[in-house]
């Protein structure tokens, strides 16, 4: 059952919760104080390595359309997109690296390599998802308006297609995420602000158009100039690379808030929420997975 009163659910007193906020803020302060040259070097190198990996992948695809080169290039490209989206893009847009005051690695300037616009992501994810985490009816990430992922949502015959919908969503996850802020459901029901919807749809179309042109027209065209590669081989490779990234990020994200044990909440719960109660709701509503350094990196540090 979704939680309506977090403090009651956890049997914690107001003082306990306030202490929690105090302790977590102290940890945050420690980490903020420790940031320095080492960290700046880490993100610069990660970005350089990711871009080099992408170039390598695309060159492999241009060098040959033979099976082995094709797979090598496709997987390399897929991995580079995963790193760009998860370890770099998602974290940069969260403001994690804003402390460096670097205009090229900043939440306000980063545009990431996927179909959705960074501006829309900052609304749906940074704001809506992180402020209203797992609150039914507010956090759209709970099922993406498509899937039934918790008993708290009433069952409808539509949900019979859950597995099918998720398969499609997983393969085209970048488009599911990119369209989130366009709020197609609301538009079809006529419950949207038309001007806003038009503006958002335009923003999405511009970004999506650039991405589609890059991966499915421009690169295949450029590599077709290479004697060893063809338009179709690169096109297929780019499609698969994007799918690799989509499926991987979908899997990691679904592990974050849907497993049993990651609680859901009702709208009443967050009324008058204190900082400590917000922290508590984040902890109760999230799931972790065991990880080594590689998984940690490839999941964008979405585990601990």
């Amino acid at each position, binding site marked *: 059952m979704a939680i309506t009163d977090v403090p009651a659910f956890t049997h914690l007193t107001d003082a306990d919760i306030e202490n929690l906020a105090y302790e977590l803020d102290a940890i945050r302060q420690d980490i903020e104080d420790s940031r320095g040259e080492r960290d700046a070097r880490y993100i610069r190198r990660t970005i350089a390595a990711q871009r080099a990996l992408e170039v390598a992948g695309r060159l492999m695809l241009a060098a040959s359309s033979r099976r082995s080169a094709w797979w090598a290039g496709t997987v390399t490209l897929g991995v580079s997109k995963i790193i760009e989206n998860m370890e770099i893009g998602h974290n940069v847009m969260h403001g994690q690296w804003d402390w460096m005051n670097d205009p090229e690695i900043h939440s306000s300037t980063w545009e*990431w390599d996927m179909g959705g616009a960074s501006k829309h992501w900052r609304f749906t994810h940074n704001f809506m998802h992180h402020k209203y985490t797992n609150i039914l009816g507010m956090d759209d990430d709970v099922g993406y308006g498509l899937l039934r992922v918790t008993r708290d949502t009433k069952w409808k015959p539509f949900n019979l297609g859950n597995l099918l919908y998720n398969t499609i969503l997983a393969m085209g996850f970048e488009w599911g995420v990119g369209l989130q802020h366009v709020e197609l459901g609301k538009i079809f029901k006529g419950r949207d602000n038309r001007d806003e919807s038009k503006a958002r749809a335009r923003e999405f179309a511009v970004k999506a158009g650039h991405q589609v042109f890059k991966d499915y027209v421009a690169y295949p065209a450029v590599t077709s100039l290479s004697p060893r590669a063809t338009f179709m081989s690169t096109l297929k490779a780019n499609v698969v690379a994007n799918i690799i990234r989509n499926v991987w990020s979908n899997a990691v994200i679904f592990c974050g808030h849907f497993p049993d044990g990651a609680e859901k909440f009702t709208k009443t719960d967050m009324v008058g929420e204190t900082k400590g109660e917000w922290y508590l709701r984040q902890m109760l509503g999230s799931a972790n997975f065991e990880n080594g350094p590689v998984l940690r990196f490839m999941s964008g540090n979405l585990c601990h």
Partner: protein
Amino acid sequence: MAKNTIKVSANVADTVRPKVAGAKERPGWNALRAIAGRITTPLLPDDYLKLANPLWSARELRGRVVEVRRETVDSATLVIKPGWGFTFDYQPGQYIGIGLQVDGRWRWRSYSLTSSPVTGAARPATSARASRTITITVKAMPEGFLSTHLVGGVAPGTIVRLAAPQGNFVMPDPAPASVLFLTGGSGITPVMSMLRTLARRDQITDIVHLHSAPTESDVMFGAELAELERAHEGYRLRKRATRTDGRLDLARLDDELPDWRERETWACGPEGMLNAAERVWSAAGIGERLHLERFAVSKAAAHGQGGTVEFARSGKSLTVDAATPLMEAGEQVGIRMPFGCRMGICQSCVVGLLEGHVRDLRTGAEKEPGSRVQTCISAASGDCVLDV
């Protein structure tokens, strides 16, 4: 999609698009960049090229420190080779923003360019390589964090960020017939650019330069100025060692230089000297002949002090206390401030801090001009100007 009965509104700021420096001046290269951008999107080709050579990017101005030359015991000249996008036809006397990465953070300060601009017609006699550099001369201020670092700690090869040259403390072309330079300490730096440019353009007709420094050895560019005096009889330099001879009394300028009222004057130096100059010139009714350059030292106000926050794009301003978030201040004067969660976690409200300091209401940390701040959890710390 989610049914929201709680009406959620936000005004998320647009993602700032990369602005290519010098795009207008180089339309051909820019067209090529746009075409190549089709396959590098959402990045620019520059973002890949800079991995090979940091200067190969016009997305943000940057340069490489090629040489650090000691001038006096506490000052040094940095010779910087700018990267793509930098235009060398600035005006003598203008200043440039320098960003240095210290401990992972980019910190910004402004310094006068001491080098001469390079324009199409006049090519300097020195090597072509030298002409594609700029110089700044930095004096280490005892309480100055970045200046001490620049003078003592920057190794050649360091990459610095640059802000395009600006400022209206400039020497026009052609120069006026008779000129007075009134400088003190590091205030000589913009005037060096002017002197070097005038020497190159052969426009030194009648210049008197009154320069004050604590002692003779504190005079920057001493040898070069002596050589200039020797080579041009139109240039007369009078140095004053304030530690032994006391400060120049501008009220008694007639004793020093009887014809000062006829000269177009450029003054740059300590606050006190400039204030005195302003008084003396306006008292003589020739205020428009005096050009001043103030090296403002930006210091945060004492803890717990608010100030006047100015919103640069609309020109509106408001006086606030130290507990009022800047977002509220902006909304009070009717500005559509970008916002999201309004609790400091979503980065929707980030704007640039152009001048002054702000304080993070959660941690107490100060943010200095040139950084970007979250308005929902920042308050003014003294007067400040926001880019919104």
